[in-house]
């Protein structure tokens, strides 16, 4: 009983600021922008946005994959240093997050744009400016840069908790270093990989600022479309419908990824 009462503030908060607004989103998604009548028109129109949905998912998956490839070795290395170094290195990983998200993204613009820092150097050497910005690559770069800490942190936590005796047991049973990694460490880091990928993918797929600043009209993401519906196109009903579909897609993705962990989560044992 007591523990339930402790939940009360959170339940109230969730109701007022999450559940009710969610209801409002659903209400808008199913009503006409002018008459306020119930309609499915908003959802019927979504077909036009399918390529943007797909692009958002595609770019976010690529970003999550790159974060994993970069983040895993980092997390693994941090987890295998002394506790003193672990504290310092995880601080370093978190450090960029202390800086404003907007500022970080704008800094990349200043670096990459045609008259930016890198291209100034390139042209000073007498070469043509490189196409560093306004393409898929620059959007992915921005997302990887911004969301990498969300990948490293859960990976580091899971890898750090792997019982060193399991590694010794694997060596004892004939595993060389590579086999210890593929047979024991990697399978045991799956929960960390899943949560890292989720934590990068979910914010990335709904992001809107990165693609505006680092991308072009050809790299518009669904977050940008939703933002413009509310702020410039004055069609909050369509925006709400897009949000709703986005949310459902994210739920499906998370549910799909969690299927991999269901069996392993309880596997973190202490006999």
């Amino acid at each position: 009983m007591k523990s339930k009462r402790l939940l009360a503030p959170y339940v109230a908060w969730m109701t007022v600021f999450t559940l009710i607004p969610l209801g409002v989103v659903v209400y808008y998604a199913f009503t006409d922008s002018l008459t306020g009548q119930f309609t499915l028109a908003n959802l019927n129109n979504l077909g036009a946005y399918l390529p943007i949905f797909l692009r958002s998912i595609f770019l976010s998956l690529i970003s999550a994959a790159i974060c994993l490839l970069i983040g895993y070795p980092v997390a693994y290395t941090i987890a295998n240093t002394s506790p003193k170094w672990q504290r310092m290195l995880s601080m370093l990983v978190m450090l960029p997050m202390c800086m404003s998200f907007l500022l970080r993204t704008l800094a990349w613009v200043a670096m990459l744009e045609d008259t930016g820092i890198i291209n100034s150097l390139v042209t000073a050497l007498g070469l043509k400016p490189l196409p560093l910005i306004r393409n898929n690559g620059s959007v992915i770069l921005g997302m990887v840069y911004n969301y990498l800490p969300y990948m490293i942190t859960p990976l580091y936590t899971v890898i750090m908790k792997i019982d060193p005796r399991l590694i010794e047991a694997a060596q004892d049973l004939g595993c060389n270093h590579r086999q210890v990694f593929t047979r024991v460490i990697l399978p045991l880091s799956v929960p960390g990989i899943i949560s890292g990928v989720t934590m990068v993918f979910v914010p990335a797929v709904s992001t809107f600022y990165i693609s505006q600043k680092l991308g072009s009209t050809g790299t518009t993401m669904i977050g940008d479309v939703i933002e413009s519906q509310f702020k410039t196109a004055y069609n909050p009903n369509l925006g709400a419908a897009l949000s709703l579909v986005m949310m459902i897609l994210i739920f499906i993705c998370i549910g799909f990824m969690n299927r991999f962990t269901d069996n392993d989560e309880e596997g973190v044992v202490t006999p």
Partner: protein
Amino acid sequence: MAKELIRLTNLTMEFDGEKILDNINLYINDHEFLTLLGPSGCGKTTTLRIIGGFLTPTSGDVLFDGQRINAVPAYQRKINTVFQRYALFPHLDVYDNIAFGLRIAKLPELEIDQRVEDMLDIVSLRGFENRKVTQLSGGQQQRVAIARALVNRPKVLLLDEPLGALDLRLRKDMQNELKRIQQAMGITFIYVTHDQEEALSMSDTIVVMDKGQIQQIGRPEDIYNEPKNAFVADFIGESNILDGVMIEDYCVEFFGRKFQCVDKGFSPKEPVDVVIRPEDIDFVEADQGHLCGTVTSITFKGMQYDIIVDFKGFKWLIQTTDYQPVGKRVGIRLNPEDIHVMKKSAYSGLFGDYSSYSAEYDEIAEDTADEE
């Protein structure tokens, strides 16, 4: 007949400038059940980890079948380990845990299956193939750990306090089980424990260790009956340890009285430690005893009474089935074979006085803390 399999020569291990192992010399025969016995921090686990290849000694050699293997990594040694608290792979089921080593060795699936099934029979876990190891009881996990090691048919099996986490009853069963498996498969077992009873009942040879040094090596009977110093006498079983003087061969003096004994080879008038096991002492009427004392406490222990008797200020523990009331004057008689004479050592005077006796002495040694 007995063939030497492992030899440790002048083995020293230092960790952060602290000596964990101090000049260990030891050989282990093929098919032998050898136990490293000692209190926490005595270096027994370190010794085992050096043999397993998880630690490299600071100096000294590890020989396996006559070959120096100091630099051979763990995964290339024909040695397998049953770890403290088992270290089973939580992402694999029972079958895959046991098959792990065979799959690494890339044996054909058919043979793997045969050997895993045989192993499941040996450790009585048939039908548990597809269980998750996290769903097993301690005793079952422990048997999976043994099967996972033995299925590779190692020349040597290292066991690091494998029964430490089990309750007493299960421990007794597993002791018999382990001994049976060892004899059936003819594998050398090197067993680490701090439990003297476990060591006595299972081993062919016991190595008693303390402070990084070997205190005594011998058969269980020798270790118990002829302890080399006060530490061994106190650690293995209960002992009354007294100051004495060796008058001549077969004659030792303590408590101002000369006793016949079975020991010889000391210099005349050499100060010695005299060990008298509590169960060897017989009560007689006060006026007929070699020594006379007063009962100060009596505790019922099930099989026997633990009786503390005060002899001129020095308290002895005596174990007997006879009830003696507190305050009674009693006499004791000692036969020559009840008296064990040891040379003086660094441990003299530290053990064997029951003045601070408490009925809970059994628990004192039960320190299962991991030593790393």
